[in-house]
């Protein structure tokens, strides 16, 4: 198991190196000179040169890369041009919103999808199955931002139960913070919930046809035990795979939903930074998010090893 983990962590480091390279290059090939966008309609050759120098854009690209990675390794992601604040601090302050939002969405997704998927599998080709699958089909078909708008229209404009958006911070109390994240989390998790429910259903269905399930039932094991101890655990590998990928997608999806619900999270920070060509922020956020996703994937791989002993020796 230890060797397996070491190998996975090694692969993680290599992946992160390529991620950093990719992020850096992509940001550099974006059309539109950052110096121009920063200076706006009043730019002249002089001020453009000055800003380029201040941003370090006048140096060769490989030198820029080495400097950036060197600083990043020491935890320094540079300074935001727009806010004149350290990028690291900016990211941390925005995580206050995005992390709970993503976790809430993930919680909603897992808590709703797995029981519903198992339920559908046990009611195979009966009305419960069809109902569940119709519901999840709807979830796959409706885009998150649209679902978000519909939720706002119903729960805040019509019913007035929750606010239409915005986030006053955790300082105003835990409940108030949570309330403002509820609708966005549901909108964000809806699509992923639908995908996960379908995956769970088919994975459990497949396992239910296995001989050992038949054996367990034949020797008189209670149906609940059959379902959760024998079937679900063995069906978990594809479920965990999908759920791991989905965690990353939730983070990416928050970019759009944070705009719909005007939440001051990482997604909106990225969007604003891209249009303002705030390069240090764009690079920093993308590197950070990519690292999180890569790390989650590595964690999922390690989890495989725990779930299925065959994998770690493979």
């Amino acid at each position, binding site marked *: 198991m230890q060797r397996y983990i070491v190998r996975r962590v090694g692969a993680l480091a290599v992946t992160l190196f390529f991620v950093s390279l990719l992020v850096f290059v992509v940001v550099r090939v974006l*059309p539109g000179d950052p110096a121009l*966008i920063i*200076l706006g309609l009043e730019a002249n*050759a002089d001020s453009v040169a000055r800003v380029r120098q201040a941003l370090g854009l006048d140096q060769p690209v490989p030198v820029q890369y080495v400097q950036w990675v060197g600083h990043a390794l020491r935890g320094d992601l540079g300074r935001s041009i727009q806010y004149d604040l350290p990028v690291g601090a900016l990211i941390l302050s925005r995580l206050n919103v995005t992390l709970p939002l993503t976790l809430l969405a993930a919680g909603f997704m897992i808590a709703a999808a797995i*029981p519903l998927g198992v339920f559908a599998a046990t009611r195979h080709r009966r009305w419960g199955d069809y109902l569940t699958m119709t519901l999840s089909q709807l979830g796959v078909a409706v885009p998150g931002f649209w679902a978000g708008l519909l939720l706002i229209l119903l729960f805040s404009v019509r019913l007035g139960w929750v606010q239409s958006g915005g986030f006053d911070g955790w300082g105003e109390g835990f409940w108030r913070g949570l309330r403002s994240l509820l609708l966005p989390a549901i909108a964000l998790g809806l699509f992923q919930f639908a995908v996960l429910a379908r995956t769970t259903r088919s994975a459990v269905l497949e396992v239910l046809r296995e001989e050992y399930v038949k054996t367990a039932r034949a020797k008189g094991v209670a149906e609940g035990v059959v379902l959760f101890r024998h079937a679900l655990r063995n069906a978990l590998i594809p479920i965990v795979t999908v759920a791991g990928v989905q965690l990353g997608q939730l983070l990416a999806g928050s970019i759009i939903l944070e705009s719909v619900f*005007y939440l001051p*999270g990482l997604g909106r920070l990225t969007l604003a930074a891209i*249009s*303002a060509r705030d390069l240090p922020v764009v690079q920093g956020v993308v590197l950070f998010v990519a690292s999180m996703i890569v790390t989650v994937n590595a964690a999922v791989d390690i989890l495989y090893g725990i779930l299925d002993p065959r994998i770690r020796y493979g």
Partner: protein
Amino acid sequence: MMRVTTPIVIAALCAAAVAAPAVVSAQNPTSLVVQVPTEPPGLDMTSNPSSAIAAVVFDNVQEGLIKIDRTGKMVPWLAERWYTSDNKNYTFFLRKGVRFSNGREMKAADVKFALDRAVNPETKHPYRVQYEAIQDVIQKDDYTVTVALKKVDATFLYTMARQGSVIYPREAVDTLKSQPIGTGPFTVSDWVRGDRIVLLRNKDYWVKGLPKLDRVVFRFIADPNSTLAAIKSGDIDVSAFGIGPESVDELKKDARLSVIVGDTTNDVTLSMNNSKKPYSDKRVRLAITHAINKDEVLKGAMFGYGKILGSNVDPTNPYFVDVSKRVAYDPAKAKKLLAEAGYPNGFDAVFKVAPQYYYTVRSAEVVASQLAKVGIRATIQQIEWGQWLSQVFCLAPCQTPDYDMSIIGHAEAWDIGNFANPKYYFRWDSPEFQKIYQDSQVTVDDKSRRALYVKMQEMLADEAPAVWLYMHPRLVITKKGVTGFWKDLPAPVQDLSEVAWQK
């Protein structure tokens, strides 16, 4: 076991959150929540020309010697009066007892410091050109300052009323970007990056009885649909900018809301690359103008809100004359002019527009269909704002703009000088126009200056270096009971000093 409890816990959390005490309503008689679409890139008006900064800071936190009031008139402000005998030396007499929000009294030394700093090329003041005429700033005593100009500058007083000319305390110059201090009715209390800026009432404000609000929250909401939902659910009290004209009729029917429709200095302009064939030919430019039915454009793109323009000068300008009828909608004449210019079968053209501004794409769609009727086959290419700036607007180091036609709103007041600048992205080079403009810059007498402005407007209409489509309207949505908002916007401000909740 875990699998059973998780959903229950989440469900319980959700239920508890929904059942928690009602969200504190935005409607608090001394507090106002105002939506603005863009977060300001810093709060320093002396280093960045962004109108998003002015919307929060100008006249709310920091003020100038002269103020542009809600009718567009220049009124004495931090300077209670001024005089000049030769139009080259202006002496300002400062109001006594005006305090900055840090408690210190504003004195002539602060005015000298702010103006010297604007003139100094090291400062990187975004509008340095406007201060180039200043030769010296002389502090006579604590309340008297004389500004000596190198030459007569008819726009000097206007420059003193601009956002870049606000007065701030010398000792607070380093915190202008995050914590600007001024003499205004409000002070910056809190800036939650990415979410909101909170202003609090300046208790020592020098205008008695103002401001009427204790607290103003500027919330950054860019998405028009989210803004609409927020105003309808009551989470914001005012939408200052961003709700499109398509929603206005519906909002007017809502008894809880009021809609303000007013004038702005934002001229939506169809630009043509005058340095490129066929747009270098005046007959082609006139043909394009004749081919466009501006009423239809206004209806199609703006649901009829806004005003038709005939030149670069908009109705908020005191020298405005209506020249829109000089080159009227006449497709037959357009075809004739095209044939004369050697394009009897029309030509192909590309509109480069930035969808960041919704009205550009909508207007281009209507215009393209109108141009098709006279044989000009125009396609629309949507490009991102950064690309628009480098391709169309062609900022340095760009040498030649890469576009045929585009559409964008030019929001600055008194910007007719753009047409006297052959390097501007229109690339219109008319020595005759440039001469009239230069004259207007040194003509202080109001009557003569007006005559020059009328001449320039007529010349722009007749020469058609661009097509001025319409003035973008000011559309502000407020909750019923919010009073004191400016109807028109002659300057880039959101002055909240007189805004109040009706008792």
